[in-house]
């Protein structure tokens, strides 16, 4: 809760920096602010569990705090990665927009009312539309921002329509009241309530970019500046899943027959479409976009196993943490390689990276292994926990499909590793990177391995 206020305040402070000319100290100030927000989260742990705030509009329970922790930690790493981004034009605007997006992300972890859900999604999305288009002279970036805006507004329309129908049936925006309504008259819910749930499902599937609502994702991910792509695939994704989980695992858990089968088809489609298309990509950035669709499918699998209670929640928490940290490492390397190659992130650009910058090659290898789900890295355990949730349910076939498509995933992740180690580089001069980025790479790589060694640290966080 306090983190939310601190980030809002920082966002407003960032805009004042333009007027009162303290742009230089803004960057360290934001980093300190995020650390403080993170630390204050610890003081709230268990403290106000289940105490509704503001007439039950928002509820920072332990689940919300854990997901905010993931978001804040990732955003700290992201700000280190993005230090170049804040050295060009519109510094204060960029800071303000990113911080406001973080406010929206934190709201999505903790909402307990449909109005706060909608506001959270919009506060997260609108800065993202602008940031996607923030490289104004680049046509691809403009296209990305425009496409994201049009498609995102369309999805918001679906969300509002769904919320309206649910309100019509239950007479309340409150998640607890909706949940009570479902369990109270379970068998005789009006038909339009189900229609409302399905419309909300469509909107949320769009926000997490699951197939067949994924068409925007590759273009937007490729067109946006690389650091913004990193923000989208980590923080936006984590926040969207926290919201998805709160809605479908908790609130609509009672009507899972309605959305369960549809969700399983969506997951199967996402797994097949994303992995097969990713294998055919030449651009690593685009490949990571498709891989994010396949990771979304894995996290949806944990939501599908909705009778496992807190086990599902901690599996999603672990998955989003592992995926975010791995992605930050991968995007740091992609950022430097594409900067070297004048913006191109084609596979050839990675040729012989091991000779040009051994540290980046090692860290990229660990990140790729983690995203592919090879043991010892955290990515393996993330997938393992998801599978263990679904085993024994009627969705066993999804596990088999997921393992088969993961094998395809190994192929395209290893294409990058092979290019780095076994292909001759086009240029032989070394690449220099900031020392802060070198530290960031080392840190994210260590966390990826450490999370794989002691997964219980996260899995048993809810006791």
């Amino acid at each position, binding site marked *: 809760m306090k983190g939310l206020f601190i980030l*809002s305040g920082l*966002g*407003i402070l960032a*805009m004042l920096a333009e007027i009162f000319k303290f742009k230089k100290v803004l960057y360290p100030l934001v980093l300190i602010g995020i650390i403080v927000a993170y630390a204050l989260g610890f003081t709230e742990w268990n403290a106000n569990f289940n105490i509704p*705030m*503001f*007439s039950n*509009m*928002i509820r920072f329970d332990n689940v919300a705090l854990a997901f905010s922790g993931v978001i804040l930690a990732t955003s700290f790493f992201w700000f280190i990665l993005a230090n170049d981004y804040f050295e060009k*034009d*519109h510094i204060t*605007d*960029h800071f*303000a*927009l990113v911080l*406001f*997006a973080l*406010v*929206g992300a934190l*709201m999505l972890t903790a909402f307990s*009312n449909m*109005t*706060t859900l909608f*506001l959270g999604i*919009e*506060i997260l999305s*609108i*800065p993202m*539309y*602008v940031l996607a*288009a*923030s490289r*104004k*002279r680049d046509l691809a970036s403009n296209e990305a*921002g425009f496409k994201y805006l049009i498609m995102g507004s369309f999805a918001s329309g679906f969300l509002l329509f769904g919320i309206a*129908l649910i309100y*019509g*049936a*239950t*007479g309340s925006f409150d998640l607890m009241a909706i949940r009570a309504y479902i369990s109270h008259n379970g068998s005789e819910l*009006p*038909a*339009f309530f*189900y*229609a409302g749930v*399905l419309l909300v499902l469509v909107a949320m599937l769009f926000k997490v970019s699951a197939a067949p609502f994924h068409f925007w994702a590759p273009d937007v991910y490729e067109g946006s500046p690389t650091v913004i792509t990193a923000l989208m695939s980590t923080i936006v994704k984590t926040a969207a899943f926290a919201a998805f989980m709160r809605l479908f695992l908790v609130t609509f858990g009672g009507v899972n027959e309605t959305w369960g089968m549809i969700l399983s088809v969506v997951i199967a489609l996402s797994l097949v479409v994303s992995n097969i298309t990713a294998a055919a990509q030449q651009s690593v950035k685009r490949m990571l976009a498709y891989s994010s669709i396949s990771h979304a499918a894995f996290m949806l699998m944990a939501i599908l196993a909705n009778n496992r209670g807190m086990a599902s929640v901690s599996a999603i928490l672990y998955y989003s943490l592992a995926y975010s940290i791995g992605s930050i490492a991968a995007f740091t390397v992609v950022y430097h390689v594409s900067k070297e190659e004048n913006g191109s992130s084609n596979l050839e650009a990675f040729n012989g990276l091991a000779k040009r910058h051994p540290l980046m090659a090692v860290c990229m290898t660990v990140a790729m292994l983690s995203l592919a789900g090879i043991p010892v890295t955290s990515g393996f355990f993330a997938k393992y926990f998801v599978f263990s949730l679904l085993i024994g349910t009627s969705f066993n076939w999804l596990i088999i499909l997921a393992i088969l498509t993961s094998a395809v995933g190994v192929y395209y992740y290893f294409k990058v590793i092979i290019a780095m180690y076994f292909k001759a580089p086009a240029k032989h001069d070394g690449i220099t990177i900031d020392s802060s980025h070198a530290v960031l790479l080392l840190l994210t790589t260590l966390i990826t391995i450490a999370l794989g060694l002691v997964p219980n640290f996260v899995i048993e966080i809810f006791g």
Partner: protein
Amino acid sequence: MLGYTITQWLFGVLSLMAIMFALMVVFTRNPVNSVLYLVLTFFCIAGHYLLLNAQFLAVVHIVVYAGAIMVLFLFIIMLMNLNADTEPRKHIVTRVIAGCIGGVLLFVMVGALKGAEQLQLVQGGSSQIGLVKNLGKVLFTEFLFPFEIASILLLSALVGAIMIGKREKTVEEIGN
């Protein structure tokens, strides 16, 4: 009249007009006409708000949407000189698929809302509900948090619009 009350007649006529104008927004090929039909649709919806005792909302709806936003819309269309029928025709396959998907959604909505008129009202409305006084009371008590956090939303939209819209320094200016 025919067993219906005045309110029911008004509701029927307004709904029919709203749907008709909304369809015209989509089917007209001239963007200016399209916007004008959208204004008419907004007026019909404002009529619905009045029937629901939401007088304040109806007025705000007309002032903000039909007034401010639609005028902005028209300005942009005229500035960009879009008033000719410039929209390219989509391929027939695209149109058939889009029609099918839209039709399925319509089918679901009609099916879902069929029979809904027999349901008990979950929340009865009071005749005072649309007054500014009551609206303000709800906004500053129950909906205080969303009301305040909406300012962040507006602020980020504002910052974003300025960032996108601001003229970049040209190469010569940077050189100086």
